[in-house]
């Protein structure tokens, strides 16, 4: 069936900010959908609140709304745009939920808008547990037995049906707290009572436990003629019980016979037909009993997902792109396979390699959280690796995570503890498995403890055996045959060096002298049955190379690896832009990255894609293979920067700002010297490698001080230290300082305004791209602070000082490309906190706000273009307020205090745009999921420093009709200013206390600034309760002031929605 002709204008819903469980994969899918629909001639309208995405680039849709993904805002956009259809299946759960809400409230029908991809009924069957269960029963497929109960009696009645072991999962608790697994009646009663108590709705799920069963996923596509194909099968290394997003997963399935695989395939096809997903992709999860093959359906997603992004990258079959085309009426046989060109998309990809995905976690940023892996996803990113064997892919995957090399576990681990570590799934479990294998645990024993399939365990054993073999060798005795075999198993030069006591460079030199180098093979969807026209490559140690490198002028762009807090989609955005711009400028572009979620690893983004770990070894091999004119390291965040000096030393032509300049800016001593020469103030600071030195430095500077390790990302282990005992503690436990990596100590500027400046430079000229004022003061990590373009309360003198410093520093560091500077203004003086002569997190935000693609311009500067070619003023301007607000994952980490600090903990960001500051902040907050109240009661509790501003804050709130609630101290202070305030007990004073009020929904807003140096139990309880009951909780006074402005805007005017293209056109006209 050809393309539908009754549709002209299609709205695509994005997934909003990056959060745990919903990340870059939806930028990848949304971008593909935008491109596919546009190329089919449809007018496209995109809505997404996340400015860091490629999909929200104004060129990708006819109109791009960076507006909050709320029902109200999307409805307003639909009313304005009157699209013929909405595509809700490429924007994750967020888009699906919005579509359901808009369908159910009648908006879509009223405005004659059709849902394409998945209809309301299908979405509901897939999403509603009970409807789905009934549907599965009707087609004869089993699911775990389960039911919801509201009392112990009901639970006892149900357990007879469900049986032990059983999972008890309270409804609506954060991170599933309060639940557990019961193996007998006694445990059952105890856990059920606890769960009912923990649930705000006094309800819990009782479900048959199939923990330990094997877990599989199938990715399917269906077209309007009911043709169904399976794109990829995925087998989870971690068995049932660990969220698939937290599991190591492997494609294709490894331990299913064809019979079992076909049973699963048939079941999946029945499911997609029964649920009624009309066109597009779906993901279906299965559990399989390893002792008899019993199969159960776990769930289905009637949309593209994280797994479909993985499956697309694993097979070369672009699921989201095809899904978009199917949604407008094409059938699978009408769509060509891009890779083979001559065969159609109506087939099932076959792969001739093994793919391993390994998640990356950020538990170190949430020290009090439970690091056990369970049914709630906790990882923040993932790496994928491709190899010809599982062993090769697995080891490549581990090094793609950029974690330590080898499998060392803590010393002195006794057997009991090791067994516990094996039984309880955690981020580190695979290392303990390797350790246990080294200790001589048998596969059977390990399978018993971990339930990991013996096939995987045996493969790990082969790696462990090989480690032992290597350790007995020296570089002299290793020989070419063995070396090739080790490389085929995925051992890095670095690991071989460690095991043989040699240097990595020596292993590399030996390899080269013995002629042991990787070849590159293609991902081609078809196991080489047809010729491939897309150079999508991975390395392996075999005979035949298919890279087929060209002799065009070419640039390699190093990506940013797996997402992590502090290094996420913003850097992928920059890398993609480099590819787009340089391709347009006539270069062949070559992307290197290992993150399957991203747009950069779409084979469409660059001319050539190397899906490889970003390590020195892997990058050097590609450079040698391709012989590029230039390599870009400044766009991929810390990952490529960490390699820059070594690459430079190895003769790699790094373009743009030189790695020496980047290094200089990171080097405390040399950079301090440069600032003194330029007469630019910097907070007093020093560096230390011992407790004694640290103490001396701190005394010299004066407390409080900001301490952190050098060369880190996202403020890792950064802390504000108010006294010597905390400093001792920090130096002893928090960091390992060394002469190469000293601890940096800065004077902490209290109550300072913080400003981020992004700039472009070409060696001669500097263009200031954006001066962004933070809403939160210095001391809160810049990535965790809302930031405002243009600045809203900075004096002209200070702005001029920052402009001057920026230009001077860009020239002094000979910046070619992008630069970011963080300034603080304290007591009338502008200080430079940090200079990063590279792409920063704010590049996409500033690009979207100003309408100038900074990363594209920067990449052209790197290949010799001049700023004068771009027709830019000396400083880019905006004609309204653009505010970027962070989004935090605290909900996923029970036990963590949701306060802001110098260590970055946000995972994503949104942008709010409005004429006035208050309106923009309101939208940013809405986009970030915070619904500020129009009216009601505000609980205020502030620390001593903040008490000065208490009266003003209270007055503003009272003026808008709010009532104030406070504990004794606050009440007294407000009374001193003649402001009325209702008294409430602290948590330990009596009842009902403040937490009781929050739980009974009598508080509409919490303003609670941490009391000084440590946070106390009382306030933590308040903040946790506010989070659990979804009550906005503001933890800084500057944030509170912004919130007041936003509430005022909320009360006084309607939210306006406009597309980015309209904003930019207006700005250009003014």
């Amino acid at each position, binding site marked *: 069936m050809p393309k539908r002709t009754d549709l002209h204008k299609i709205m695509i819903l994005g997934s909003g900010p990056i959060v745990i469980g919903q990340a870059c994969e939806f930028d990848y899918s949304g971008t593909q959908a935008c491109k596919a629909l546009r190329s089919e001639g449809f007018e496209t309208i995109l809505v997404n609140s996340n400015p860091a995405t490629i999909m929200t680039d104004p060129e990708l849709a006819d109109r791009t709304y960076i507006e909050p993904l709320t029902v109200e805002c999307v409805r307003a956009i639909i009313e304005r745009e009157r699209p013929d259809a909405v595509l809700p299946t490429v924007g994750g759960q967020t888009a699906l939920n919005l579509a359901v809400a808009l369908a159910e409230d009648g908006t879509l029908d009223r405005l004659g808008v059709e849902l394409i991809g998945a209809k309301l009924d299908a979405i509901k069957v897939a999403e509603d547990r009970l409807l789905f269960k009934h549907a599965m029963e009707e087609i004869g497929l089993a699911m775990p037995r389960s039911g919801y109960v509201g009392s112990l009696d009901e639970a006892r009645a149900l357990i007879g049906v469900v049986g032990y072991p059983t999972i008890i999962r309270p409804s609506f608790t954060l991170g599933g707290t309060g639940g557990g697994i019961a193996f007998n009646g006694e445990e059952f009663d105890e856990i059920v009572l606890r769960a009912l108590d923990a649930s705000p709705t006094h309800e819990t799920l009782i479900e048959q436990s199939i923990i330990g069963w094997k877990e599989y996923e199938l990715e399917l596509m269906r077209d309007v003629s009911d043709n169904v194909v399976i794109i990829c099968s995925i087998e989870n290394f971690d068995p049932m019980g660990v969220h698939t997003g937290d599991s190591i997963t492997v494609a*294709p399935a490894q331990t299913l016979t064809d019979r079992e695989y076909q049973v699963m395939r048939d079941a999946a096809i029945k499911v997609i037909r029964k649920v009624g997903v009309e066109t597009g992709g779906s993901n279906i999860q299965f559990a399989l009993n390893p002792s008899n093959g019993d199969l159960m359906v776990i769930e289905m997603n009637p949309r593209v997902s994280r797994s479909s992004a993985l499956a697309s990258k694993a097979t070369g079959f672009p699921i989201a792109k095809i899904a978009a085309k199917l949604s407008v009426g094409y059938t699978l046989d009408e769509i060509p396979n891009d890779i083979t060109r001559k065969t159609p998309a109506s087939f099932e990809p076959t792969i001739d390699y093994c793919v391993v995905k390994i998640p990356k976690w950020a538990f170190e940023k949430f020290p009090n959280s439970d690091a056990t892996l369970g049914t709630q996803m906790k990882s923040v990113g993932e790496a994928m690796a491709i190899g*010809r064997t599982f062993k090769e892919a697995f080891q490549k995957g581990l090094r793609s995570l950029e974690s330590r090399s080898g499998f060392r576990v803590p010393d002195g681990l006794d057997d009991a503890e090791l067994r516990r570590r094996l039984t309880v799934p955690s981020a580190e479990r695979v290392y303990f498995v390797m350790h246990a294998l080294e200790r001589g645990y048998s596969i059977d024993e390990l399978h018993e403890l971990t339930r990991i399939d*013996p*096939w995987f365990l045996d493969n790990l054993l082969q790696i462990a055996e090989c480690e032992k073999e290597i350790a007995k060798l020296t570089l002299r005795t290793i020989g070419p045959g063995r070396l090739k075999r080790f490389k085929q198993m995925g051992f890095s030069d670095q690991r071989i060096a460690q095991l043989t006591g040699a240097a990595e460079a020596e292993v590399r030199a030996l390899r080269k002298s013995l002629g042991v180098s990787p070849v590159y093979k293609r991902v081609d969807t078809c196991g080489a049955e047809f010729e491939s026209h897309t150079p999508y490559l991975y390395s392996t140690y075999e005979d035949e190379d298919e890279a087929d490198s060209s002799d065009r002028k070419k640039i390699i762009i190093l990506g940013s690896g797996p997402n992590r807090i502090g290094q996420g989609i913003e850097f992928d955005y920059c890398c993609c832009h480099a590819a787009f711009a340089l391709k347009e400028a006539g270069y062949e572009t070559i992307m290197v990255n290992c993150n399957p979620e991203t747009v950069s690893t779409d084979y469409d983004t660059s001319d050539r894609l190397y899906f490889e770990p970003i390590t020195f070894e892997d990058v050097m091999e590609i450079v040698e293979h391709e012989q590029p004119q230039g390599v870009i390291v400044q766009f991929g965040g810390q990952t490529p920067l960490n390699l820059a000096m070594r690459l430079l030393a190895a003769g790699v032509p790094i373009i743009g700002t030189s790695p020496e300049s980047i290094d200089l800016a990171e080097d405390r001593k040399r950079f301090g010297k440069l600032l003194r020469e330029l007469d630019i103030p910097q907070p007093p600071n020093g560096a230390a490698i011992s407790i004694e030195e640290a103490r001396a430095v701190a005394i010299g500077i004066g407390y409080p001080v900001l301490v952190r390790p050098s060369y880190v990302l996202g403020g890792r282990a950064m802390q504000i230290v108010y006294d010597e005992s905390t400093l001792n503690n920090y130096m002893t436990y928090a960091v390992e300082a060394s002469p190469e990596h000293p601890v940096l100590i800065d004077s902490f500027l209290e109550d300072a305004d913080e400003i981020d400046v992004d700039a472009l430079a070409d060696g001669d000229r500097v263009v200031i791209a954006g001066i962004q004022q933070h809403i939160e003061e210095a001391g809160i990590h810049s990535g965790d602070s809302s930031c405002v373009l243009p600045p809203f309360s900075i004096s002209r003198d200070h702005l001029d000082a920052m402009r001057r410093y920026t230009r001077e520093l860009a020239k002094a560091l000979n910046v070619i490309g992008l630069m970011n500077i963080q300034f603080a203004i304290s007591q009338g003086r502008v200080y430079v906190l940090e200079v990063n002569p590279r792409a920063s997190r704010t590049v996409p935000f500033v690009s979207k706000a100003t309408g100038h693609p900074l990363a594209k311009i920067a990449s052209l500067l790197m290949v010799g273009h001049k700023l004068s070619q771009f027709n830019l003023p000396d400083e880019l301007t905006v004609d309204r307020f653009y505010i970027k607000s962070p989004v935090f994952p605290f909900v996923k980490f029970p036990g963590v205090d949701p306060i802001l600090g110098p260590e970055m903990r946000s995972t994503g960001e949104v942008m709010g745009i409005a004429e006035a500051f208050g309106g923009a902040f309101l939208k940013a907050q809405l986009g970030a999921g915070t619904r500020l109240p129009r009216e009601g009661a505000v609980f205020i509790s502030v620390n001593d420093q903040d008490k000065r501003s208490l009266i003003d804050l209270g007055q503003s709130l009272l003026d808008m009709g709010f009532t104030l609630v406070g504990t004794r101290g606050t009440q007294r202070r407000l009374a001193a200013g003649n402001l009325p305030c209702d008294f409430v007990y602290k948590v330990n004073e009596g009842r009902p206390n403040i937490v009781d009020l929050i739980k009974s929904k009598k508080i509409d807003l919490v303003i609670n600034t941490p009391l000084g140096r440590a946070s106390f139990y009382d306030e933590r309880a308040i903040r946790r309760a506010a989070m659990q009951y979804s009550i906005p909780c503001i933890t800084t006074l500057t944030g509170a002031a912004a919130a007041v402005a936003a509430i005022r805007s909320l009360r006084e005017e309607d939210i306006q929605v406009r597309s980015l293209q309209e904003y930019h056109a207006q700005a250009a006209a003014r």
Partner: protein
Amino acid sequence: MEAILALEDGRVWRGQGFGAKAEVAGEVVFNTSMTGYQEILTDPSYSGQIITMTYPLIGNYGLNNEDAESRTVFAEGFIVREVSRTVSNWRANESLDQYLTRHGVPGISEIDTRSLVRHIRERGSMRGCLSTEDTAEEAVVTRARNAPQMVGLDLASSVTCKEPYVWRDAQAEAYGSPTLLHGADLSVTSRMLHVVAYDFGLKRNSLRNMAALGCRITVVPAHTTAERVIALKPDGVWLSNGPGDPEPLKSVIENLKILCERFPVFGICLGHQLMGLALGGKTYKLPFGHHGGNQPVKDLTTGRIEITAQNHGFAVDADSLPADCEVTHLNLNDGTVEGLRHRTLPVYSVQYHPEAGPGPHDAAHLFERFVTAMKAAKKTK
């Protein structure tokens, strides 16, 4: 154990041997299925061929008692990137190495199988020799060159059963009857229907599919005369898959001409090619054939697409078919004929494998179509 693989054009791969210590020659083909190596090894259609699996990790789930498609291994040799040293599946009772050793078939692993596949794709399938017997390179190449050419080769006559027999499935109650799995429409079943199945190298799963639809099946050798088949009073005649070139099977083709006039006939794979020849068409050799479980086929009569299991080196030439025949199925990858039927007689065939084993069950309904045709024919009698 060292092993060597040589092609007739002189290209040689060296790797590790597994399975039996032996030297074999045959046509080297590649199969793109990621699962189902046991079914593939035991498919008689692979007689005379050495199989390369494109998926690199083979043997992971071992071998079991239920999944063999015939009495023994028919492939001459087996080529894989990595043989699993361990076996993980509750039904497994043997490793790939043990299985091949027991059946006297050699294997080679640890070679760049993708380079071999690309070589065949570029230059067409060719003869090869696989040796695990320390043979000198030159001798192995010579042996490859001396192997028989597939064109003109009658292999069906050597793999067919010796005597007719009534099919009884030893595994009838075993794990997962395929028909129940893909949800066949049992309303078309009939205990009354008698199928005579020509064995040119048949796979058990075809018989299981028909038996599950209620058919009583008598299997007959390839060269059974039309008269003997007529004497068995069948309701329909089924033509199996099988190895080699269909053209040398002249007497079979003559028998089919007679049977097509009298009974509903359903042919699969080699059976389809024989049908094409019997109806007056021609066959030809494909460059490297279709071997895998992901081949898209469009049913031109319904417009639906099926993902099919395929295993053939020859194809029916569409232009050669007489006017009373029509092409019903096309391969969407290369446009070759995947199915045909007679315009007036209840006679039809498909080039692919509706019985799967291994492969998707998308086309299993074709057996129901056969049953329906037999019922209709019975009614008009």
